[in-house]
């Protein structure tokens, strides 16, 4: 018992230093913009850049939309596969793995050919349409993580019985989905949402080739041409992403719909 706890602390301390020291090194360098002394000049420079604010808020909005639509796609699918098509699970799992290995650039070139302004579905014909396409591309990129975390959460509830209980009480499919299943896989949905959030904030290829003003391309551009701002940006992005997740978790904890189980 005792040695186990010590081992656990060692593991956590090792992990913490492995994760935190590179962030500290990055942070330290970001403070060196003013010659000979530490200053927050780099941060001032970043925050005063309109493009930073615009691209970051654009990406946050996209992240939220991606999360919402990703959930709407993945939760019912994972639910249905568990309920009615268990034999399809390996297949669906394989599909959700694909985005990890197909280079984003290949996918996005495909989009440009399939959904260009003179195709049947001219997503790229307008800025809004392109935003939509971009959101779908983000959903694609986050699919491996979203599907897995939701599916794992679903394993812990008896999907079939809850469904039948709801049905016998007269519930229709949407009611079952939104009132009985969703709230009970919230933990999985949340962790999927976290990862999605981080993916969208950092993604470069998709928004760049679809020409939308997202944070990823901005980060890349600054990274190519500036010395002190990129690490500052990295720290800011890391902090904001983490804070958003903490917020999300807090919100879900205080919402009555998802009691934490003992």
């Amino acid at each position: 018992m005792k040695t186990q706890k010590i081992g656990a602390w060692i593991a956590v301390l090792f992990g913490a230093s492995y994760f935190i020291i590179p962030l500290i090194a990055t942070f330290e360098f970001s403070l060196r913009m003013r010659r000979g002394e530490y200053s927050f000049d780099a941060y001032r420079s970043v925050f005063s850049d309109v493009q930073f604010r615009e691209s970051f808020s654009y990406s946050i909005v996209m992240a939220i939309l991606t999360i919402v639509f990703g959930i709407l796609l993945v939760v019912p699918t994972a639910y249905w596969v568990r309920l009615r098509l268990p034999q399809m699970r390996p297949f669906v799992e394989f599909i959700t793995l694909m985005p990890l290995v197909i280079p984003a650039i290949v996918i996005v070139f495909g989009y440009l050919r399939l959904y260009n302004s003179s195709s049947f579905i001219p997503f790229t014909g307008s800025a809004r349409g392109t935003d939509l396409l971009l959101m779908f591309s983000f959903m694609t990129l986050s699919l491996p993580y979203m599907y897995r975390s939701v599916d794992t959460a679903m394993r812990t509830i008896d999907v079939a019985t809850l469904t039948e209980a709801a049905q016998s009480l007269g519930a229709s499919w949407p009611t079952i989905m939104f009132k009985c299943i969703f709230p009970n896989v919230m933990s999985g949905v949340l962790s999927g949402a976290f990862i999605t959030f981080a993916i969208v904030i950092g993604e470069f290829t998709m928004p760049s080739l679809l020409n939308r003003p997202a944070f990823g391309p901005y980060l890349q551009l600054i990274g190519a041409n500036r010395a002190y701002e990129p690490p500052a940006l990295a720290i800011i992005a890391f902090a904001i992403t983490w804070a958003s997740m903490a917020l999300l978790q807090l919100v879900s904890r205080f919402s009555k719909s998802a009691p934490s189980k003992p």
Partner: protein
Amino acid sequence: AAEPSAELIAAAKAEGTLTTIALPHDWCGYGGVIEGFKAKYGLTVNELNPDAGSGDEIEAIKANKDNKGDQAPDVIDVGLSFGPSAKAEKLIQPYKVETWDTIPDTAKDAEGYWYGDYYGVMSFEVNKDIVKESPKDWADLLKPEYANMVALAGDPRTANQAISGVFAAGLSAAGGDVAKAGEAGLTFFKELNAKGNFVPVIGKSAPLAQGTTPIILRWDYNALADRDTLAGNPPVDVVVPASGVVAGVYVQAISAYAPHPNAAKLWMEYLYSDEGQLGWLKGYCHPIRFNDLAKNGKIPQDLLDKLPPAASYEKAVFPTLEEQEAYKEVITKGWDTVVGANVQ
């Protein structure tokens, strides 16, 4: 110089937008050039991925053949060798600007599909905080005092700038024999790597300042712009080497599928006007009409003063397309066995 026709201006204004790609604002003064164009003609400029490489630009045209949306570039600015190949693939369209005749014949496609826009020479960008004594020539880089310091500005298997760096080193080592420069460049880097002087990280502003890559082999205009941006923290030296001075030429062209062909033509007119050419020069790039402008006394003296000494440029070698093909072949094929192989 002659002004573009009123019809062209009207037609371009009717299109309203120009889509560019791969134009970093601190590359060759493009930030100012784009502003100047917007101010002069009132068009919107939609800038695609400023950080893209030449290959990206070509792929962007291909991918957007049927797309008239914001993703399709109207004009491209690519490494010299991409001009002829893009023409062969029918990705670009011909257009001759008003100042066509003042562009040297060696730097343009006879039919006007592409023409050179600017050039610079390969130089050393040096972080003076770390490097007390700047290297003066390629051979200096092999000295033990430069251990863990020398970096290329890209991957020599893919980036024109980096391959030019290897070529330049080789040219110096081969005593100016272009035919042997490719092999000699590889040998040079093999030695550089063996001595532990070579840092296989892509050199740019942050690692230069941080100290990972205190010496970067770059186009002089990039090095100079970066020096200005860093503004003394750290102080930066830009050195044009004593030997092996290699000039790199980029070319401009209009996409065959340009959604805004007239805006593209107007853009070309602007770039090749005196104003546009001087815009590039402000970014430390030698515009292709440099000699023409100089001859006519159109270059303000303060601009000339900021450039590296003209003497360095006199020795500059402009490899021909054929020469480029040859050394590219040697370097891209051989690089892995020279440097890549022992980084595993």
